């Protein structure tokens, strides 16, 4: 059985979240473009330098899993997700 330690719930729980708010520290962006590959409806890149552009700061639930993936995978830790 699973041992449950006394700790707060992880905010990136995949169940029950209904709202999501995304903030970016775009100054740190290294233009890898991984977020656009994972969640193209939420992220884009500027044409001139590839820096991330946020298309939807509060995406619908259907996008949440992809956004979490994008935040986790970003090689410059630019994307912060609040749920």
């Amino acid at each position, binding site marked *: *059985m*699973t*041992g*449950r*330690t006394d*700790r*707060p*719930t*992880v*905010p*990136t729980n*995949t169940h029950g979240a209904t709202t999501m708010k995304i903030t970016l520290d775009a100054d*740190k962006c*290294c*233009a*890898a*473009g*991984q977020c*656009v*590959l994972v969640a193209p409806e939420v992220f884009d*890149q*500027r*044409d*001139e330098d*590839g820096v991330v552009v946020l298309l939807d700061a509060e995406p619908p639930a259907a996008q949440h899993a992809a956004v*979490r993936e994008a935040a*986790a*995978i*970003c*090689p*410059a*830790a630019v994307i*912060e997700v609040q749920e």
Partner: protein
Amino acid sequence: MTIRPIAVVGASAAGITAAEALRRAGWDGPLTLIGDEPHLPYDRPPLSKQLLHGAWEPAKLLLRTEEQLAPLGLDLRLGTRATGLDVATRTLTLDGGERLACAGVIIATGVAARTLPAADGLVGVFTLRTLDDALALRDRLSEGARRLVVVGNGVLGCEAAAVARELGHEVTLVGREPVPMAAAVGAGIGELLAEEHRARGVRLVTGEVAEFETVADGSAARVGGVRLADGSRHPADLVLLAIGSEPAVGWLADPALDTTDGLGCDAYCAAAPGIYAAGDVARWEHPGHGRPLRFEHRMNATEQAMAAARNLVAELTAEGAVATAEGAEPQERRPFAPVPYFWSDQYGLKLQAYGLTSGADEVETTVLDGEARRAVALYGRDGLAVGVLACALPPRQIRALRAVVATPVPWEEARDRVRAATATATG
């Protein structure tokens, strides 16, 4: 009953990502994160870029704030080194002598900068792997104009040389190979970079270090220059050794582990039952390329840590050590088959590569605009295109190039697709 922890050894990008991914995958038990540096997890790519330059301060490199770490419920052991692992019992030994019997272990100890015995104890000789390394070199570069000799013309040496030049220092870049980054990206792109470094005023020198010349500095010996095997002498106030790295596997002596080049793993990133690895230290069987690969790339640290964490939890679930959440499907272990990615920033140039660019037996470099250093290169092996690199190309084209090598494709087909992807370069 006492629940054994999962321990993640290594608290850099791969380590912190693994810890988060373990929680997301459903590990609710104790979770220990062990890092030998005293700092909270921080990001390394900016060390040879924005941090060395002085544009960013160390706080900006933190991968997570204390507030972001708190919900993970970590037993965080910073300034702590793992000194041994008994594979059969999954028991770690820590440098204080503590033994930690674990449910599972993820090894993400990374690599250590290679050095030269002749440089031991010499004042003014630096490596560049940790935050403390970078701050020490930055301090010396901030004291005024210096003569810097960078030994090693790979990615790290090239990036550091570019930053030092931008700061106005006199820079000599010494490489065993005449063309910078040739092993990583081939001679064509390497020559383009060489032109940029020369245009910026970096002296490019080919040769191998024979000895360091020293000057007396109180009781210490301070470096005064570098003499190469051909007898040429290069005066230096500072020397940066950027001659590659060694996987941090010295502490893994258990014969059940293969540590010939990093820690050997299967396609699932497993080194042994319950023992996984991720990041720079991990050599694994990439199912798409059919050979063992090990990458010292930032992107791989994150992706592999996520894969290793998911697979470890899946294994523990199958063992019955983790209960599956009510209503959730038990996860199966999945082979780790990423499209590798790396980037490098030098001056205003950004290089971005997907797939495999080293170890190619065929490279085709197309310079689209020599002055702007815009170029694309395709890398092949055994008749298949396996990698692509873009220098100073717009993001849309780069994403299209990634699609070309997402899985190995016949060389001719890939060439056509690269041409199509870069045909609208001015658009």
